[in-house]
């Protein structure tokens, strides 16, 4: 997966320094947010799943419109509609998509992307 910062930069009016800071911050915070999602799925509360999946979607949507953002939205809807049986599968898909995105964001956050 090759992440492209174009959409983020466009929304930020071209502020590359801020875009890199946001990427680095998301890389730092993502494990905690993903842990919240794991705990909610393990706890089996549909409302908790809806809430934390929504929060995760809002944060990751700063960087991507599909992939992990779309899966988090599907998980949010599973919580909203009380389809708890769907949650573990969606969580596994979310973890996989995030695992692909994070290395790209880490490189961008360090400012290495232009050099590569």
């Amino acid at each position, binding site marked *: 997966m090759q992440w492209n910062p174009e959409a983020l930069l466009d*929304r930020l009016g071209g502020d590359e320094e801020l875009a890199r*800071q946001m990427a680095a911050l998301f890389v730092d*915070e993502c494990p905690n947010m993903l842990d919240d999602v794991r705990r909610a799925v393990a706890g089996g509360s549909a409302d908790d799943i809806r809430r934390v999946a929504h*929060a995760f979607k809002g944060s990751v949507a*700063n960087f991507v419109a599909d992939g992990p953002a779309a899966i988090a939205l599907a998980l949010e809807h599973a919580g909203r509609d009380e389809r708890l049986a769907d949650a573990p599968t969606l969580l596994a898909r979310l973890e996989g998509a995030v695992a692909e995105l994070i290395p790209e964001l880490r490189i961008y956050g360090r400012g290495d992307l232009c050099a590569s």
Partner: protein
Amino acid sequence: MRILIADDDPVQRHAMRTQLGKWKYEPLVFNDGKQAWQALQEPSPPALAVFDWNMPGMDGVDLCREIREVPALAGMYIILLTSNQEQKDKVVGLESGADDYITKPFHWDELRARLRAGERIVTLQQTLAARVEELQEALVNVKKLSGLLPICAYCKRIRDNQDYWTQVEKYLAENSEAQFSHGICPDCLNQQLAMK
């Protein structure tokens, strides 16, 4: 101008703090609605606010509803942020007391433009409130002059609130915007000339 921010997303908070600072605003940033609500209990709270809808504890919609219950915060201009995109969500957000609504992820120029619109409204409201206060003070003076004034039937002095008899022109000068220029009327002029 100070702007109150409440958002549980650390990435969004950082971006908000950076961008608002760049735009010469003074952001007061909180992690959730409860902290923002506590900040609003302090004297002179900010008149402009950006709240995320979904936050643990007290969310943005709850915050809007609480704020609209407080007369002192009635003039506060609130922009609600959310990734909810359904039409009914927008209606719920605005009916909770928000003045404006932006769907995430948004273009930051759009937020800037909406903040400017909010700032114009807040400034206009503050100007109007100051004008109303001035008019109320003026009305008090008008009422003073419209009451029953005790006046001496002979020397025409007026008794003031301190029970002191004062000249008509002095009394009016102190209790109105009127100013006096002294002259002599034709009758008095004739009387004075006849006396000489």
